[in-house]
């Protein structure tokens, strides 16, 4: 393996395996793209992208006012708003819409759009892709009805023996099934392209997207098994009882890596769209691929950090998953390094000098660049919190407190979702052929989301440290606790108002961008290239099979016995409670 001896400041390739001119394949292929007749893949990228992303953002728009209501209701500051039925209905719906609907549909839409454009290749069967979309949409509606009727107020984690009505589970399962169609499309797309371009490196954006599709296939299996083996048989009356310890173990398999499913599109945008948008080049293409592979392998078999406080798993297994959990720091730090280095390259190419001079020269008025910077800052803050959550003994201080909700709003609602916004701002003119309605408003919106997140989640974390539990509709514990909690509730409420305003601005910009001035020449969909743009990469960074085998082995090692033990533990089963029982 030839190692390039360049340092961060030498942009010249030292080796003919690299191509500085945008990557030849990108160049030659984008020339065929300028003909008057748009190829079929452009049409499908447009409609699959738009439909999926709008369902996602529609769910987001519905869920936001619920978040605002929850902050108000919970705080004891507005006695008139108190209603526990409404509160738990709202939290469950808000959680499901944000965690399952916004994410899954956005990821599918962004995935289709970037896959088809980066490969310049159509989906293998449009009917198949649209079938997946329709199944996911029907599932969403099916789950939404009981949610809104208050018949499924079991939180988005739906832990048994608390039960929702049956359509909730079937709807959720259909949403999963629909998303697997997308996963299959991504894997097939990558394989077709590799066959047509033997030996060539799959474009980075496609490599990341396909890794995420695989990640999701593996990840979604835990909750799927829980629903298939435990919940539906109970709901259909085939069995009368359930083991909640097994259910929690299954769900932990999904619960951790699902957050990487949500976060990966943010990284993908930073690695493959931001470099060009910020006027520079990606610092390293290969290391980005290494990071994607590591995120895939390390993020699934470590779900026990959600079970640290649970009685049904032994300490040794928890310790093992703790080791794995900390391994995720490696690809995360690599990503942080590459993205910061990329930003620095951009700043210097734009004339920035000195240790910090490049920061001022960054394209702060470019939504993608701005969002990347803000997202990285939230990732840094949220990462510190994550280390506490992940730690074997400190977890006891914050498990199920408001610290957790503060943490995941910062890292999910903040770090990930701000990149979803930026992707939309980047993609919309490329989809609609119209000007982004207002770039100024888009920039204000991103800043407001960032500050809103800071103002909301910092006091939220503190409330957790001060002992406030999560998922409570009111705070009846003691006047002393309320006296120390109240000031933080007030600040949080201010933050929630900022976030709500920002969300409204986002939707306004997107809607208006469908009616704005038509562009003479819409921007092309071109992805960033690296300083040393590889035409070929080591086989392991271009293929999927080995990594699936590695995952299988690691999963068997970390979940094999802990699941098998339920066969011989002889746990007395539990009867179900709640809706429809």
């Amino acid at each position, binding site marked *: 393996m*030839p190692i*390039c*001896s360049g*340092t*961060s400041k030498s942009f010249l390739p030292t*080796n003919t*395996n690299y191509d500085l001119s945008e990557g030849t394949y990108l160049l030659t292929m984008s020339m065929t793209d300028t003909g008057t007749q748009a190829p079929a893949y452009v049409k499908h990228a447009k409609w699959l992208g738009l439909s999926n992303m709008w369902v996602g953002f529609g769910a987001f728009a519905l869920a936001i006012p619920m978040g605002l209501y929850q902050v108000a209701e919970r705080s004891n500051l507005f006695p008139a708003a108190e209603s526990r039925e409404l509160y738990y209905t709202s939290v469950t719906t808000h959680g499901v819409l944000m965690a399952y609907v916004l994410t899954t549909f956005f990821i599918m839409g962004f995935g289709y759009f970037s896959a088809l454009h980066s490969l310049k290749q159509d989906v293998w069967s449009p009917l198949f892709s649209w079938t997946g979309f329709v199944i996911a949409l029907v599932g969403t509606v099916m789950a939404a009805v009981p949610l809104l009727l208050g018949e499924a107020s*079991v939180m988005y984690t739906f832990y*048994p*023996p*608390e039960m929702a009505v049956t359509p909730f589970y079937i709807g959720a399962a259909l949403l999963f099934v629909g998303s697997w169609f997308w996963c299959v499309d991504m894997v097939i797309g990558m394989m077709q392209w590799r066959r047509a371009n033997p030996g060539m490196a799959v474009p980075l954006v496609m490599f990341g997207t396909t890794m995420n599709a695989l990640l999701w296939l593996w990840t979604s299996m835990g909750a799927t098994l829980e629903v298939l083996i435990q919940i539906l048989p109970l709901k259909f009356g085939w069995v009368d009882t359930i*083991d*909640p310890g097994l259910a929690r173990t299954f769900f932990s398999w999904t619960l951790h890596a699902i957050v990487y499913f949500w976060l990966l599109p943010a990284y993908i945008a930073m690695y493959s769209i931001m470099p060009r948008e910020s006027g520079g080049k990606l*610092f*390293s293409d*290969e290391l980005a691929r290494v990071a994607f592979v590591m995120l895939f392998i390390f993020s699934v078999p470590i779900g026990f950090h959600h*079970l640290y*406080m*649970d*009685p*049904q798993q*032994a300490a040794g297994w928890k310790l093992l998953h703790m080791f794995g959990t*900390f391994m995720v*720091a*490696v690809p995360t*730090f*690599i990503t942080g*390094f*590459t993205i910061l280095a990329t930003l620095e390259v951009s700043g210097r190419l734009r004339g920035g000098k000195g240790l910090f001079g490049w920061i001022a020269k960054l394209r702060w008025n470019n939504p993608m660049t701005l969002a990347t910077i803000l997202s990285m800052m939230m990732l840094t803050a949220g990462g510190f919190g994550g*280390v506490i959550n992940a*730690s*074997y*003994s400190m*977890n*006891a*201080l914050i*498990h*199920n407190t408001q610290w957790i909700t503060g943490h995941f709003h910062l890292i999910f609602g903040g770090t990930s979702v701000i990149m979803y916004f930026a992707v939309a701002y980047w993609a919309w003119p490329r989809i609609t052929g119209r000007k982004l309605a207002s770039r100024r408003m888009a920039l204000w919106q991103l800043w407001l989301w960032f500050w809103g997140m800071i103002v909301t989640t910092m006091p939220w974390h503190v409330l957790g440290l*001060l*002992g406030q*539990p*999560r998922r*409570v509709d*009111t705070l009846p*514990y003691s006047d002393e*606790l309320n006296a120390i909690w109240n000031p933080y509730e007030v600040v949080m409420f201010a933050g929630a108002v900022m976030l709500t305003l920002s969300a409204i601005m986002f939707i306004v910009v997107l809607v208006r961008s469908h009616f704005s001035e038509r562009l003479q020449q819409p921007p092309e969909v071109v992805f960033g290239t690296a300083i*040393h743009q*590889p035409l*070929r*990469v*080591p086989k392991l*960074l271009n293929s999927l099979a080995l990594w699936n085998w590695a995952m299988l082995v690691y999963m068997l090692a970390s979940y094999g016995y802990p699941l098998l033990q339920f066969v011989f*533990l*002889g*746990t*007395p*089963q*539990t*009867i179900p*409670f709640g809706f429809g029982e």
Partner: protein
Amino acid sequence: MAFHIDKLEKRWIYMVAGIVVMAWGIQIYYAAQGWHPPSNVEVIDSAQLHLASGVGGDEFSEQNIGIKRDENGMLVVTMVAARYGFYPQEITLPQGEPFKMRIASFDVLHGIYIPLTNLNLMLVPGYVSEVTTTVNTLGDYPMLCHDFCGMGHAYMFGNVKIVPADEYKL
């Protein structure tokens, strides 16, 4: 096949590896001192906590819950969590003395947490949760349910009084 890695990147990766190893080291250090999360993997028949005949016996029956000393002199708090309360509803414990909490759920998933301490347990029906810890500050604390268990979830809490060790009587 070409794989390009920058010198700075290599240095960074070594640093990150160092950070991870350090994090592991800290965790092992505390685990070695006995700081384990509750993990006793002990089953019980949650629906029959009141009967001696169920799996796990009648340790959690009405006459057996409360605070006792075991044969080693260790304080043992035996409790039941059921929608929507903890039984016994009030307990008193000495400041600074380790105690063992053993608790089981009678119905659904619950949790128990004493704010500003590290007493934090998930209560999963079918299993006994156990932890040994110490509370070092005097005062009245709620012990509250921190996992959603139904419409009364927020009202599910009991009280712990922490008194000076020399004033403590069982």
